[in-house]
């Protein structure tokens, strides 16, 4: 019910944002149009001009959508002019990174929960690792690995994974500890082995913590993959499009790539929600 009630306000705010955007495009592009155009120009012409410049300061929404549609539908999917191709390059790196992060996060969390020394010694450093701007290390990792002859997917996936493992680890540590103490005691009376407690009790209990953190990790992995494409002048990928657009002043191209990134992120989040729903269904409707 809450979702249905949010629809109208959301539409209203969305329309307001688009309206402000058009007005902003007039204000920001105005000076440039006035500079280039003839002396006497009607207000109508002036407004239309600000909304249809080739390299506007702020492109109007319809320009971005047109650019996006043109890129998506007029070129074949494998062509480097199609944004889907770039989105896939970035998304595949982000997904591989997410896989690495999941494996690493699960291992670390299981270790922290089961070995007290690790809990005391490792946990503070994990938290500290989050306060470090890990993205700052990204270009160096890419450059150094590139010099060793490792290019392409792997460096990007490594950075995406490094960003994404933290929320997964923290969420899983919390989740693996969220098992009901009474049930743990019960399993102890059954003389269950530690791995049985893990697979029967701790892991299922952690799933409800895993999925919200998986969403955060998904976004972070995408950000990591995009940023990893910046330093080496990668040929393909959304980050490469952003960089190329900023070099040549192609603002519409930048915004289209941004919109594509947002769409990719939404798609990833939707996929996580879908998996969550499927898992919940298998387990009787709730996590």
């Amino acid at each position, binding site marked *: 019910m809450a979702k249905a*009630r949010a629809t109208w306000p*959301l539409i209203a705010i969305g329309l307001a944002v688009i309206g402000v955007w058009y007005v902003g495009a007039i204000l920001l592009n105005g000076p440039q149009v006035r500079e280039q155009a003839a002396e006497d120009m009607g207000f109508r012409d002036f407004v239309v001009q600000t909304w249809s410049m080739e390299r506007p300061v702020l492109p109007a929404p319809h320009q971005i959508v047109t650019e996006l549609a043109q890129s998506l539908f007029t070129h074949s999917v494998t062509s480097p002019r199609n944004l889907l191709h770039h989105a896939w390059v970035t998304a595949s790196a982000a997904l591989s990174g997410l896989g690495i992060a999941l494996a690493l996060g699960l291992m670390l969390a299981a270790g922290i929960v089961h070995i007290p020394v690790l809990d005391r*010694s490792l946990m503070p450093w994990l938290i500290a690792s989050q306060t470090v701007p890990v993205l700052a290390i990204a270009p*160096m990792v890419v450059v150094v690995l590139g010099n060793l002859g490792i290019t392409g997917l792997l460096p990007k996936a490594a950075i995406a994974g490094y960003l994404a493992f933290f929320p997964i680890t923290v969420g899983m540590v919390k989740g693996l500890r969220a098992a009901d103490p009474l049930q743990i005691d019960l399993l102890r009376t059954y003389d269950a082995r530690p791995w049985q407690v893990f697979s029967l009790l701790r892991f299922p209990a952690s799933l409800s913590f895993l999925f919200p953190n998986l969403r955060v990790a998904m976004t972070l992995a995408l950000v990591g993959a995009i940023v990893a494409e910046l330093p080496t002048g990668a040929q393909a990928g959304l980050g490469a499009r952003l960089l190329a657009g900023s070099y040549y*002043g192609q603002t519409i191209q930048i915004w289209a790539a941004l919109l594509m990134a947002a769409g990719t992120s939404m798609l990833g989040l939707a996929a996580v929600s879908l998996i969550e729903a499927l898992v919940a269904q298998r387990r009787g409707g709730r996590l």
Partner: protein
Amino acid sequence: MKRAPLFWAALGLIAALLARWFIGVDKISATIAAAAIAALALFRAMVGFARSEGWFARLATPAIFGFLLLWLWEMLVIGFAIPFVLLPPPLAIARAFVTHLALLAQDFTQTYLHAVITGYTLGCGAGFLVALAIDRSPFLKRGLLPMGNMISAMPIVGIAPIMVMWFGFDWPSKAAVVVVMTFFPMLVNTTAGLAEAGAMESDLMQTYAASYGTTLLKLRLPAALPHIFTALKLNSTLALIGAVVAEFFGTPILGMGFRISTEAAKMNLDLVWATITVAALAGSLSFGALALLERLITFWHPSFRGSS
């Protein structure tokens, strides 16, 4: 028994330093012996501290772990002759840190003191004020909150090239990226926090005939503080990331992001790592300071009661 971990820690420290010295003068067997003693002693000290209570043991366990990591890094890099361009040893990084201190300080001023602090203050302030402004309108709240959540889930650093185009190469463009990155987490968290005040307390305020402003100041803002601090801590990390990444898109010849990307291309890896150390210190210290402030101000919150 209580002093045992301390003894092991001291022994391990001395053996570790000896091992580092031996490996420097190419005495292989002595290195291996000292390293074995150091590893064993440090590990025993860590286990010992992990089992005992008190603030010193709580600090000592991760400290020894960190030292162990750095020492292993140093020994392995030197022992296996890993090329400098791949991974410089920590001591070389420390040396670069000291030699280039003036340069690093300039970068720090440009990126942190100018871009991050300005952007962080403006972004968090704006997010807080907008949350207060839309507080009285359920319609705006229902529309803006899902949008805020949606935008928080997007790779916002992507707006960096646009901001560089709008505000120029110098630090204002980086501050603008930071403003956008910090605004939405603050907005969403403050709004969630303002809804936190209990119904009982709100009813009580009503029986006092308290005005909207009084209720806000005496009840709802204090109740919102834990959420606000969550946003402040999250944003302190986001702000640094935003400023550094924005510098990859163009900057005057200054700044931590600029230093990292140019020196990495020139293979001056020790300077790159020194800059990363500065960033890590700045990030950890600001996060720690905020966490401390949170403890002092929201000492009444259940997550702090009972601890300390």
